[in-house]
């Protein structure tokens, strides 16, 4: 097992190195910082961004928007997903709505949101609309997959409803919630940054990317992109860490 993990890690590192090599080759080929800057120059730019006095406000604003969108989507998605999982009627009602929201191009949502909301709220609204259907659908699928035998056992032993929800349903749907949160976050960050690019709030990674692009500052565009990837990575790892903490039984098994 340990050997497999080591091998997996080596392959992960090899994959990142491969990407860097391709990047370097392309930078050498185009030989223009306005098209593809060298990776080392971009990393210097990333370090400069980190030391910039506005960095924390800019990255923090984007993270805050993401968190607000996620928290709203999470709790609403959990509540609506549980009801949809329990009630087939409500599920039939909500499914077309969720499919519609998921099918609408993000850009259409942003254009409408630009008309309806102020620039700071647009990315939050977009984050909500992209994340909510994922969490809701996953939770509802999770509820439907709960082993009826376990519920029957709990009902038979006259365990009260609240404890059946907290002791049977919720633990059973944790993997679905985690998977929904992970997918939602993955899609959500992209949507938030697109929202920021178009709505131009005062502070935001998207705003900075748009400004850098206007001045053909390609290394800054890539540097902010790398920071966005880093933020997304940190959240993904946090979700997985939370999963391991919650699902101790799965880790032990």
């Amino acid at each position, binding site marked *: 097992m340990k050997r497999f993990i080591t091998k997996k890690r080596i392959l992960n590192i090899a994959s990142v190195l491969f990407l860097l090599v391709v990047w370097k080759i392309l930078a050498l080929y185009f030989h223009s910082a306005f098209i593809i800057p060298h990776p080392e120059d971009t990393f210097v730019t990333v370090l400069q961004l980190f030391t910039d006095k506005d960095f924390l406000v800019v990255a923090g604003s984007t993270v805050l928007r993401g968190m607000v969108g996620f928290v709203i989507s999470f709790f609403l998605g959990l509540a609506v997903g549980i009801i949809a999982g329990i009630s087939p009627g409500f599920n039939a009602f909500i499914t077309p709505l969720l499919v519609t929201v998921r099918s609408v191009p993000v850009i259409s949502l942003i254009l409408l949101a630009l008309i309806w909301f102020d620039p700071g709220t647009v990315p939050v609204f977009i984050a909500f609309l992209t994340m909510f259907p994922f969490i809701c659908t996953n939770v509802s699928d999770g509820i439907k997959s709960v082993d009826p035998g376990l519920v029957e*056992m709990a009902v038979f032993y006259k365990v009260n409803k609240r404890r059946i929800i907290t002791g049977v349903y919720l633990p059973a749907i944790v993997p679905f919630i985690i998977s929904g949160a992970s997918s939602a976050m993955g899609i959500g960050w992209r949507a938030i940054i697109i929202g920021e690019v178009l709505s131009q709030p005062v502070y935001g990674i998207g705003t900075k990317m748009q400004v850098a692009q206007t001045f053909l500052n390609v290394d800054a565009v890539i540097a902010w992109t790398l920071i966005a990837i880093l933020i997304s990575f940190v959240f993904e790892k946090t979700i997985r860490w939370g999963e391991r903490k919650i699902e101790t039984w799965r880790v032990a098994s």
Partner: protein
Amino acid sequence: MEGGIMSLLIRNLNKSFKDVVVLRDFEVTFPEGTITCMLGPSGCGKTTLLNIIGNLIPPDSGELIGFENKMLSYVFQDPRLLPWKTVRGNIEFVLSRDIPSDEREKHTEQLIKQVELEGFASFYPAQLSGGMRQRVSIARAFACPSDIILMDEPLKGLDAGLKKNLILWFLKLWKTDRRTVIFVTHDVDEALLLSDRVIVLSQPPTRILTHMNIEQPAEERDPGSDHLLKIKRELLQAVTVR
């Protein structure tokens, strides 16, 4: 009443699934504080009967007398343990929150000790063998302050040695807490080793083909003894009658 012992009665019980009549005017008596085995081939309606007694499915008609206000425990064929709860957590799960937590804990630990799982109290079901899981399920049934324990082929799929051990663990618990046990199986050996009374059921519509009392204490029974072999022959003969 049967020899001074209170009995639970089932009268004129009817149950059909679509066009298949499973139970027609079925009647049976279960003396309280004894282990009654309903023996019959697969599909004979024994689980249907158990599920009606357990209130998991409604009968079409009929009376269940003496079951009112009785608390029930169920040892399912598949142990139905919560995978995210430990042995301790699974047993405690069925205990009412009205019982103070220290009392719940004490009761749970005592049962874990009785089924000899002390070293596994913090283990999750996936870390246990099939036999250990069923022991937890039995301990859970005894943890619940029930009057009646229903058991649906709880030994199915276990090897002979494990079956014998489980029966001994069950009897150990039952001797200290004699509840009414209604147990269904298709296995004559299980019936012989565990029951005070064996009722042989026919194919649907289910009727009672015969019933036998086994007077010898369960823990003293030797499946190879002439006495048990004679009963076994008679039961097998009855089971094969259609």
